[in-house]
């Protein structure tokens, strides 16, 4: 009886410890492990929130086969930074105020966070944010890419996105004429 009781208590303690763990371990497609704040992960990612609530988080590393280690490191970095940052008034203010746009401009640290990324890393991070259902990170990264596109010529944009021009010369000329107004003073 004594032994059983002890065992039960130990089991109980282990369960409590698991529930109390304030981080979760994520595993990238290439097998690297990353620790991330459970609270921030659940708050920032609808997919991770669902996994945490559904109990499908693996202590030995939850497999995220679609995300490479560099992108996952950035995701985790973003979550942990978010966990430590004090939300500014702009982020916690209600979206129903009269004059503010519903999209909140990136915070200073978010701006710096995406500014330091290479094109490759930024594009991978957009995909990871989309896969994990991280609305805010998707906003911040897409915002950054759209800023990179502003004022650029179609050629420059093709270069950024590594896209091949599949128009004929005539077609392109036709579109350019149709959109002449969009090409003034830049």
């Amino acid at each position, binding site marked *: 009886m004594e032994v059983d009781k002890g065992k039960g208590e130990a089991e109980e303690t282990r369960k409590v410890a698991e529930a109390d763990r304030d981080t979760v371990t994520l595993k990238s497609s290439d097998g690297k492990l990353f620790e991330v704040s459970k609270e921030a992960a659940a708050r920032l990612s609808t997919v991770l929130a669902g996994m945490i609530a559904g109990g499908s988080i693996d202590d030995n590393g939850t497999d995220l086969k679609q995300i490479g280690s560099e992108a996952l490191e950035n995701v985790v970095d973003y979550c942990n930074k978010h966990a430590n940052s004090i939300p500014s008034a702009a982020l916690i203010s209600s979206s*129903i105020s009269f004059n503010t746009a519903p999209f909140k401009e990136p915070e200073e640290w978010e701006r710096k966070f995406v500014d330091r990324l290479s094109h490759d890393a930024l594009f991978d991070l957009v995909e990871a944010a989309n896969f994990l259902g991280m609305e805010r990170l998707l906003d911040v990264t897409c915002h950054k890419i*759209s800023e990179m596109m502003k004022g650029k010529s179609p050629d420059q944009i093709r270069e*950024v996105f*590594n896209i091949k021009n599949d128009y004929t010369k005539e077609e392109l000329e036709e579109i350019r004429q149709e959109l002449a107004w*969009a090409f003034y003073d830049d």
Partner: protein
Amino acid sequence: MEQQATTTAAAPYLPDELIAEILSRLPARSLCRSKCVSRRWRHLITDPSPCFYFWTHYDGVQHRWDFVATNGDGGPPRQVDSSLSFLPSSSWEKVEVLDSCNGLLLLRCCCSPATGDGPPQPAFYVVCNPATKEWVALPQPSLEPGFDDFYTKTCRAALGFDPSVSSHFHVFQLEEEERCYDHYVSAVEIYSSETGAWVRKEKRWYRLTGHMTFLNGFLHLTTWENVLATRRRQGPDMEDHPGAVQWGVWEWFRQPLSRPLGVHGCPNQTDGCAGDLCS
């Protein structure tokens, strides 16, 4: 240095939904310029789907408005306040959504009586843009919006707005008259945000189903006689301003339906059916 090293090795393609996410954040001019990038990008920019439309539904107590998507996940688009909380509607007794067109909403609103048992206040139209939270109350047409004494009704109104043609919108208020216990359209009163005034036109009689759609500068109305009645624009300026709404001279024209119209018999932008009919 880093710029040089990374652009050549950039991820070749993002999935369409992410390209669309990025494009949706561009200002109009950059967005239009991006049509030149590739055929796929042009398709993404000009493709109307996934589309979100406002719709109203009755929840047993009152009519409510919400978004409906033609495809995709069905959730409301971000950056749009679908609760319309930017309107001072707390001081308005009643707000009805009558129509939506290319991002604008037409509402019929009514203020509470000045005193509890005072006379009811006349209803008025409001046009708003839920994305930018701008709104404007229109001056009164000659007949009060929502007027109904059985013999004459102004219950139906529609909104015409095509941002690719003009930043101005039109509001159409239909006047219906009773004939042999049925109601027929007898006149249309049209408001232009450009002139800020209403113009009233009397014309023929049609018995409407209630479906109205503004497309390519025409207001399309479906009728019970299985025809599509169209307010057709005419005028010398038409050539100079293709798509500009010219309401100076106008006529109804009847067009037998060769094939079914879109959802609920209402022509819509995506099936191109109404476009066929008025060409």
